[in-house]
């Protein structure tokens, strides 16, 4: 629920409660006041009438000019206190008085129906007023809140668009509201800290990779010299081969790391229009020996003549990593299906008989197999390249096939 709706919701509840309580209370109070008013009138009329009645002779039959529909006088047996009560739509005052030693009961009545109408009108008017007031309040409040919270939403939007690998630091701009200013400053500082540590980490990876190259070269060179020594036993040759394989892996890992940092640094700015099919076919041709070696069945399906505006090196790396993975992680005699359709490049291959953890395979060094030759960087590089060009990559395991789909154009 949005903050705005939340506040408005509270306002609305409050308004409803107010409306529901206030109107009946107001009605009751108003009614009470009106009745008190009528009562006062009745008492005043009585006080005015009694002296006149007492000095007047009562002739039965002849109409008394003082009496009418609302004022009646009749003989009564008992005596009692004055009483005020409501009967039907009238307010009645009944009083006993003695005229010529005879007890009479005087009844004065006044209609409250008229007053009731007035009360009704007042209540309706009040309701309308209240509703208008509340609606206005809500509207004003909403508009105000929207205006007040605007910098907040701006901050939110900028934060959402911000990536830690952006070259520029996060700039949220100022705000007239102190709280938002503080928020922006705090968030900017946080972003700056993470950006700095990201840059430091990236630089470290870069420097470490570069610094590693010279010792690696020395190591590799000495190994090659060791190969030249004579006599050389088979046992020694085996040891040297293992070392050479390890150093080869190190060199490749190093290359991968440097490529990653370079992609992250945006060091592949130049792009050109490349047909994906040509690039993939070229790579498959290069990998032919490996495919034959594993006796893999290759099936290609070029349904789309897709061209993308990318860096040629990166496209080659992207496709190359996916295709070589499909070869490397395949079983001997397995199958590879390469498909280009609907703006997507798909590689499907047989391999381990279980699905890979999709959320982890694109991470650095998330090895998918115990196989020593997977270096754990290939898919991260693929992922980074996809992100760079706005491609989406998706992994699925269906019908014994591992499939990677890169959506290049929607």
């Amino acid at each position: 629920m949005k903050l705005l709706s939340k506040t408005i919701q509270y306002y609305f509840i409050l308004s409803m409660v107010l409306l529901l309580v206030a109107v009946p209370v107001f009605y009751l109070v108003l009614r009470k006041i009106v009745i008190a008013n009528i009562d006062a009138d009745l008492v005043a009329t009585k006080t005015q009438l009694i002296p006149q009645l007492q000095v007047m002779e009562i002739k039965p039959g002849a109409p008394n000019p003082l009496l009418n529909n609302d004022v009646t006088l009749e003989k009564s047996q008992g005596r009692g206190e004055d009483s005020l009560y409501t009967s039907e739509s009238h307010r009645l005052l009944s009083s006993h008085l003695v005229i010529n030693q005879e007890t009479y009961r005087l009844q004065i009545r006044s209609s409250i129906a008229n007053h009731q109408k007035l009360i009704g009108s007042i209540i309706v008017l009040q309701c309308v007023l209240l509703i208008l007031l509340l609606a206005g309040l809500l509207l004003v409040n909403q508009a105000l809140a929207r205006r007040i919270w605007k910098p907040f939403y701006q901050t939110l939007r900028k934060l959402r668009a911000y990536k830690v690998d952006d070259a520029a630091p996060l700039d949220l701009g100022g705000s007239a509201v102190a709280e938002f200013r503080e928020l922006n400053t705090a968030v900017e500082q946080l972003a700056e800290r993470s950006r700095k540590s990201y840059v430091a980490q990236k630089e470290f990876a870069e420097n470490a990779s570069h610094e590693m190259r010279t010792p690696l070269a020395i190591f590799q060179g000495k190994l090659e010299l060791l190969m030249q020594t004579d006599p050389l036993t088979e046992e020694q040759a085996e040891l040297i081969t293992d070392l050479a394989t390890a150093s080869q892996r190190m060199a490749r890992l190093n290359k991968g790391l440097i490529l990653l940092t370079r992609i992250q640094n945006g060091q592949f700015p130049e792009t050109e229009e490349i047909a994906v099919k040509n690039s993939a076919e070229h790579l498959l041709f290069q990998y032919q020996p490996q495919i034959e070696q594993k006796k893999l069945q290759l099936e290609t399906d070029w349904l789309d003549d897709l061209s993308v505006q990318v860096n040629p090196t990166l496209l080659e790396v992207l496709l190359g990593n996916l295709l070589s993975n499909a070869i490397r992680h395949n079983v001997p005699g397995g199958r590879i299906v390469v498909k280009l359709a609907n703006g997507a490049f798909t590689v499907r291959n047989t391999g381990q008989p279980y699905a890979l953890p999709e959320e982890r395979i694109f991470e650095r060094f998330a090895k998918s197999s115990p196989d020593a030759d997977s270096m754990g960087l290939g898919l991260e590089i693929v992922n980074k390249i996809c992100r760079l060009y706005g491609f989406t990559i998706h992994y699925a395991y269906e019908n014994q096939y591992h499939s990677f789909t890169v959506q290049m154009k929607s």
Partner: protein
Amino acid sequence: MKVLIIEDELALGKSIAAYLQAENYTCELAPDRKTALEKVESFDYDCILLDISLPDGNGLYVLQALKENNKTDGVIIISARDSIDDRIKGLQLGADDYLVKPFHLSELSARIAAVIRRRRFSGSNLLEAEELTINTQARTVLVNDVPVELTRTEYDLLLYLFSNRNRVVSKHAIAEHLSADGEGLFDNYDFIYAHMKNLRRKLVNAGWTDRIKAVYGMGYKMEIP
């Protein structure tokens, strides 16, 4: 043949020198730019190996000095940096090749041989050893003056082994040399055997005495007396 190795890492420089000695190259070492400049000014080299990150400054300066003195020494840059910019800069300044560390000594040796071949204007493009003749210009191979039809990979393999003759060349180095992109995405070296088998069969059928020797699954050695 004289080769100058401008490299501040002594261990690496020495390794290169030791490897190249088998080729009968005379190697000199220059651990910094100052020494390098002195040597370059006083002597002519067939090939200069230049590390561009030297303790006393950028090695590209040596390239500039060579250019200013109109020297035609072949230059191969060996660098730990491999950004496209570095490459372009080096090649624009007149370097013949650019090799990124870590590299295989056999690869370096093959590249040196190629640079020297290209630089030797008067010399022939023919590499000869007994009944084998390789024409590097036409990329053809003759055994007893009869052409042998080789695939591109087989030719590359033969030339690579020949450039590193009498030395063991590791299968890793061969695999990296043969994979066109040099990425070496595979740890699978089996495909080399197939190419090697075909190459040897074709040469032997043409009357060549097989000089290629497998060394315990570690690599191959072409022995040419």
